């Protein structure tokens, strides 16, 4: 019931959330790690410039372990792994977050509509069933065939590939979130406080935004955390199939996949990208935990 007073002072609400968030050790740790990763991929390339080697020179230093000259070693063609990890990270983090947000947005939106409005439930859930049933690879192939050249013409091949991949992943992974949110909403809308809100004549938009949405945050957070990992991995599968970025465009998923065949000989080749993906997912998970506690009005009161 403190909610109404909080509404008048939105700044203090943000501050309260932040205060609560800071108390969550895991969340602060997650934020620090994620911050480090973002700095690593964005600022890193400014500080560390890989030597530009001719092909013949690069081949002389192929498959090296970590050293001062190559802090993370080199790959089978003598390319600097640190440099590749940094540029790969830019793509992977961007793809992971944006695709996840698209998926979560669509999933939550459709889930809430379906759960709350009985008339929409049938059609929207059948749409969800259909997307779940569609075989993913032909779907992606068709999307790439129809849109790649058109988008590339407008924004260039690399940006075009980025937009296409982000949307392809987002539009093919919202269904789980939608089903989960709908399930929760079905239960929530029969709760007393929702009934109370409805009985005083609150419009559906207000009920959804004020009462239902905050209460489905927790499964959505889980879906979001898992979604990032899934998006990063799916991107590597797409690139692997030749549907993603051009082949000289590294991403973490791709580095992991490429390193696989060298795993027995040079294990660090899979450790770096594997570690980066795991750290991203882990940090987002802790941040999600912290955010959930911070957003929960009851927990905040404690």
């Amino acid at each position, binding site marked *: 019931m403190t909610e109404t007073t909080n509404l008048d002072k939105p700044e203090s609400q943000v501050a309260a959330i932040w205060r609560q968030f800071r108390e969550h050790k895991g969340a602060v740790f997650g934020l620090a790690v994620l911050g480090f990763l973002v700095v690593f991929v964005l600022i890193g390339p400014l500080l560390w410039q890989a030597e530009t080697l*001719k*092909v*013949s020179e*690069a*081949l002389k230093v192929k*498959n090296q372990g970590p050293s001062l000259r190559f802090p993370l070693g080199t790959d*089978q*063609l003598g*390319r600097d792994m640190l440099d590749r990890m940094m540029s790969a990270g830019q793509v992977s983090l961007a793809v992971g977050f944006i695709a996840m947000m698209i998926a979560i947005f669509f999933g939550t939106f459709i889930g809430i509509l379906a759960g709350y409005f009985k008339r929409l439930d049938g059609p929207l859930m059948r749409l969800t069933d259909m997307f779940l049933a569609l075989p993913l690879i032909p779907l992606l*192939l068709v999307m790439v*065939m129809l849109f790649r*050249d058109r988008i590339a*013409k407008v924004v260039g*091949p690399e940006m075009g590939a980025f937009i296409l991949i982000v949307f392809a992943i987002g539009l093919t992974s919202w269904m789980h979130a939608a089903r989960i949110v709908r399930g929760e909403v079905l239960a929530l809308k029969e709760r007393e406080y929702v009934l109370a809100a409805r009985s005083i004549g609150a419009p559906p938009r207000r009920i959804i935004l004020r009462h239902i949405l905050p209460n489905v945050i927790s499964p959505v957070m889980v879906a979001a955390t898992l979604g990032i990992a899934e998006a990063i991995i799916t991107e590597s599968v797409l690139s*692997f*199939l*030749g*549907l993603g970025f*051009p*082949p*000289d465009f590294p991403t973490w998923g791709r580095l992991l996949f*490429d390193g696989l*065949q*060298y795993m*027995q*000989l040079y294990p660090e080749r899979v450790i770096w990208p594997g570690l980066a993906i795991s750290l991203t997912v882990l940090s987002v998970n802790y941040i999600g935990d912290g955010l959930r506690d911070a957003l929960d009005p009851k927990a905040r009161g404690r």
Partner: protein
Amino acid sequence: MKLKTALLGAACAFAIAPAAFAERGADGHVNVLYWQAPSTLNPYLSSGTKDVESASLILEGLAGFNEKGEVVARLADSVPTVENGGVSADLTQITWKLKPGLLWSDGTPVTSADAKFTYEYCTHPEGGCAQAARYEGIASIDTPDAETVVITFSAPKPNPYTAFVGGTSPILQAAQFANCLGAAASTCTEQNFGPIGTGPFMVTEFKTNDTVSLAANPNYRDPAKPAFATMTVKGGGDAEAAARAVMETGEFDYAWNTQINPELQAAMAGGGKGTFLNGFGTLVERIEMNMTDPSADLPEGERATTMHPHPILTDIRVRTALSKAIDRQVLVDVGYGSAGRPTCNLVPAPEMFASDNTGCLTQDIEGAKALLDEAGWVPGADGIREKDGVKLHVLYQTSTNPVRQDFQALIKGWWEEIGVSTELKNIDASVYFGGDAGSPDTFQKFYADVEMYANNFDGTDPEPYLAQYLCDKIPGPANQWQGENINRFCDPAYDVLVKEMSATAEMGKRSELAKKMNDMLTKDSMVVVPLVDRGRLSAASTSLGGTLLNTWDTEMWNVQDWFRVK
């Protein structure tokens, strides 16, 4: 019943006299891994290597090729030639004689009628036979008696060893397939999955795209062979996992096509559990130059067609410079190791057809730069060459495959060293090689400046292969992009040579013509830039004896001679 007795016999022989070496079935069981599993055992319904090779354990032709590419008799008594009178002097007729007393695995006799039936089966207009090319140019097949097959060609055929020769055109049992002609072919699942043959093994169970279980053929013509009583051909996984299962865990005795990176090859070979077998055939990884303009600004239907010549690559100096910048030995070391060797030829083998062209083997960056200077392409401010305000930029596409992506990265590096900006693109193999006229990404459409893939020819005769570069085989909208002349090369002088070769029977002259055509496509015009002569690489356990890799026929060609090393 027969199978059971055979198995029992084998088991007894094994129990009583394990030292009896030259006895059928004495060596027990052998495990073979085809990581791309066979989907049918009828090679006339699928031309995939995996299907043809698995079927060759069961089905045989009149003759086959040995590891040197020579024709050797299998079901035939001997190989007919002009010298022994088996091939008519005007090259329009070949007469095969079956070995006497041949039996199918079900105990019935093999006759010339089976061969004639096989011809009818494959040339049926509704059958969609995958090996129809092997029976092309045949006017009729006659069977004067049960052991003689006379093939008459409609025109002189300098290479008469196509029908019934090699794993791609074996003889089917007429009695078994009698009801499977034409459109009925796909209703004959039982027959297609369990053909009765004359080969060393027969099928006991077939799980499509998964496992073939086989047992020694009790009626195989050599009573002492095969040494193994049973065999399993298993599918699934990838080349690396296959190599591991032979070389590291020892679960399998033989693995087909274990193409893995050279360093891993060396590490696995060091383990001592198995050895890699390699052999070279005619498969050449090459870059093809697009002679037409693939620009996306052209309207669909004119793009990459002969209406618009390529603005940059029609200059031979640019093509030569691109070739000179490549160090082929490095490509081999990075991608293939012992399973590849650098080449400048489109036809690298057989020896009599291979040109002595080795000019491209040494990399020449400076020479490449000089050529581009001469052609008027001068370095701009960013190091990229330009001419009349146009940047020297190429789009380089290939199918998705780790080795090809490494090649792309290396070649891009070299080309950028000589000032050519390079954009890379990779396409899923099922789309790239799919030939779907609706897709912009097929290798036939060639909506790129240069592209890389590998191709070879069936058997030992390069004539049809070289005939692919005829002017009228250029793919385009008119033929639904189905032509084989991928780089749109067109030279009337070349067409004349192709015609001449098809009318030439004398081997010396044929070899001269083939070499000349090979040189016209490669070193003289640089429209085809060969990179690597790719061999086959398979893995065999050290406990498996008798393996001999053959690139001219199926890898299972001598499976009857395999044995267990004790």
